[in-house]
């Protein structure tokens, strides 16, 4: 699938984390990946922050309600997310998960 010259987006070998493609919905899982997209809703709407995280197996989204930014989270940053996942229109989604920033 990936060209041989292409580096995987991030390694998924951090102990105890699950590749995004293998995460089972409605169980507590820990994934790790790189923040590839950040979105916060306009001021007129409910404060919500949504990010997309990608690893070499797939993409997941995490939503935090009640806020427009999360300390330390920035594009390109590698993070670890722990929470209960669901599949929302085919995409792995976390609501208010725990997060940990990686160097």
């Amino acid at each position, binding site marked *: 699938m990936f060209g041989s010259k292409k580096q995987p987006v991030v390694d998924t070998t951090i102990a105890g984390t699950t590749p995004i493609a293998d995460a089972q919905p409605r169980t507590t899982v820990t994934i790790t990946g790189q923040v590839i997209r950040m979105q916060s809703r306009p001021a007129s709407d409910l404060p919500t922050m949504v990010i997309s995280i990608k690893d070499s197996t797939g993409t997941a989204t995490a939503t935090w309600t009640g806020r427009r930014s999360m300390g330390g989270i920035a594009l390109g940053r590698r993070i670890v997310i722990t929470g209960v996942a*669901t599949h929302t229109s085919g995409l792995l989604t976390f609501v208010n998960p725990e997060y940990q920033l990686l160097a």
Partner: protein
Amino acid sequence: MKIIIAGAGSVGRYMAEELSKLGHDIFIVDNDAKAISRVVTNNPRVTSILGDGCEIDTLTKAGAQDADVVAAVTGDDEDNLVISLLAKQEFAVPRVVARVNYPSNEWMFNDMWGVDVSVSTPHLLTALVEEAVAVGSLVKLLSLEHGKAGLNEVTLAPDSPAIGSTIANLKLPRESAVVAVIRDGHVVVPALDTVLHAGDEVLVLATGDVEAELGRALIGPK
């Protein structure tokens, strides 16, 4: 379907009875042993969990991990919000329904608190009363999809521009559909060539902010 009902008051009890009769697996949660036993004595098929629905442990005991629906219907709006948020955040329950006791709290019952559908009895009653007395005005009966879609009702007054028109020729906004017409107590399934009469109750499902356009098509210029 597996349904957890938090709150064994009159609303929770009624829901448990009705939904269990329809063949759903009902788990009712309350921290009042008497209230719980009242539900279960009459409905042996309902499983009861004694405990505080605002605690993760209690929801785990009720099996929220694989519940299809959680209904937070206690008489306390704060509790209902906490239960909804836990159900969504900790258990990723696909459908969370919450009861609004005080209409002034309704604005909080949205996806920020994990609520998919909120039901406010005072609001519902007001809409139904308005619907019963109003002719020639648009009444919003129900909001769906967090208020993005709504079921609207108009009883056609004799001066409505819609009278004599077919449904195809109504100048309805794009994001709307006539879902039923009630005429003399009977439901008329709307077809494109259904002609509207004075006194018809027209039910329109619409998304977005189209009330003004619906009003122009069904009520006329004000």
